[in-house]
């Protein structure tokens, strides 16, 4: 067993809003790196570089020197940093981290690491596909295959909405008035009838007391959503009560389709939320 003389931290991370990368390193590596970052930011070395320029040997050397490495350790630290960059590009990672990078009498050893990969690159990155399949629950897998985002929560109101922001805002509003959602489900942009139907099917599996559907059509069409709702209600006789709000693209067509089946739909989201309250007997 090698003697650990010191623990370092190093990573390459995407700075998304800065549209660049950082090479990050610290002499204070190990499990407390977040604590170091919060309380002693001066102990964290951060050097930015553009994607086009890439991590240069000069920049890698500068950081390795700031960590206090000399001679062969300097060379080996530079190599490690350059390899981190190679991995970042090759795997389309947003973070490639070694923590701790330990110094032993025989040199530098990467003891533990972490990577954050880009789901959106899965179509050309087999590694990402493999990992995705392993890490998803059954319901999440179902959601992923159907093409929408889904997170299971604790409450009893099933949620189907479109757009992550609108869905989150809806959950916030429900929480603010003391109601509790059973899930987050963003059916995605331009959802097909089949996708909306599958989303409803998935929500049924959660056995919520009530379902709130909130669609603001842009690229998503209210008429297509309405068709999926009608189909699902025909196929699932034990579906919980549904409160529907439809507005935006093809709103009139969507609401008319529902009316023909004697299904009521609101145009205003607050009216719909109040209806949910009423259904739940609150």
């Amino acid at each position: 067993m090698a003697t650990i003389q010191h623990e370092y931290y190093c990573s390459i991370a995407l700075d998304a809003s800065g549209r660049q990368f950082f090479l990050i390193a610290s002499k204070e590596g190990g499990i407390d790196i977040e604590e170091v970052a919060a309380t002693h930011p001066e102990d964290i070395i951060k050097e930015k570089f553009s994607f086009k320029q890439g991590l240069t040997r000069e920049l890698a050397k500068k950081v390795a020197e700031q960590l206090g490495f000399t001679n062969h350790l300097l060379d080996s630290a530079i190599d490690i940093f350059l390899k981190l960059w190679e991995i970042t590009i090759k795997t389309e990672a947003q973070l490639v981290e070694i923590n701790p990078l330990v110094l032993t009498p025989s040199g530098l050893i990467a003891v533990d690491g972490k990577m954050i990969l880009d789901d959106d690159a899965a179509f050309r990155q087999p590694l990402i596909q493999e990992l995705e399949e392993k890490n998803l629950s059954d319901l999440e897998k179902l959601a992923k295959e159907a093409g929408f985002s889904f997170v299971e929560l604790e409450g009893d109101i099933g949620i189907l909405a479109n757009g992550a922001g609108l869905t989150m805002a809806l959950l916030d509003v429900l929480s603010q008035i003391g109601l509790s959602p059973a899930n987050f489900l963003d059916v995605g942009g331009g959802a097909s009838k089949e996708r909306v139907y599958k989303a409803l099917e998935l929500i049924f599996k959660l056995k919520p007391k009530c379902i709130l559907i909130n669609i603001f059509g842009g690229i998503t069409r209210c008429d297509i959503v309405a068709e999926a709702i009608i189909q699902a209600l025909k196929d699932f006789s034990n579906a919980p009560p549904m409160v529907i709000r439809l507005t935006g693209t093809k709103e009139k067509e969507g609401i008319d389709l529902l009316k023909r089946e004697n299904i009521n739909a609101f145009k205003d989201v607050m009216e719909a939320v109040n209806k949910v309250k009423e259904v739940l007997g609150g």
Partner: protein
Amino acid sequence: MYISENSKVVVQGITGNQGAFHTKLMLEYGTNIVAGVTPKKGGQEVHGVPVFNTVEEAVQETGCDTSIVFVPARFTFEAVKESLLAGIIMTCTIAENVPVLDMLRLVEMAQERDQHLLGPNCPGMMIPDKIKLGIMPGDMCHYGNVAVISKSGTLSYEITKTIGNAGIGVSAYVGIGGDPVRGKTMNEAVEYYSNDPNTKKIVLIGEIGSDEEEKTAEFIKEHVSKPVIAYIAGKSAPEGKRMGHAGAIISGDFGTAQGKIEALKNAGALIADLPWDVPKLLES
């Protein structure tokens, strides 16, 4: 922001379902769509708009200067690159799930060439009553002097509609998109509209994840004297959960709704508790 009622628009991917459908809606709105592009479909027409094989050809034949891209995510890189190389001033990408490295390369290319990108994963932008370059509902509001800048698509429809219903006009509606790497950042959009003589107030619609609102708050504090009203979604999101958008991830303290709200308040912005509180804050 880099578009006007005089913009000549080309629709890339015009023969696809979404491309054709939204070309129709944009034409109905009055957007001056002069060309469409789909490789190998040159010579056709979609809703009376001539289709070309390449953007370059479309530029030569029609003088188009603005593009909206409806091609799927995995082909977005090539499509946007083509648009940049053809000299298009503003290229707006609707698709979600564009790989981050593709966007980084495109943003670097646009910056070097002094061209502009919007999106991806965005609804586009609109100058009400003048031009709609995107998939947002056209009837949310009329022209006025409030700029709406949003990371989210549908939530911004909700809020912009309540603004419109309150009789308040909008100078520009800009959906910067929900992905981590964007053509235009929130900060850049705020900078643009803080200098825009037609804009008197700015509405910001943010959500958990990334540090854009925090960076924008710093900018507002230093440089923006116009009133800013903000709504941040994701206050009730459980930590560590990913809520759909690549941008909407919370990690530690950073990127939380509370952190963003504090930063914006500190910068002098008014915070709306509920989406429909925005109009009343605009009137105050």
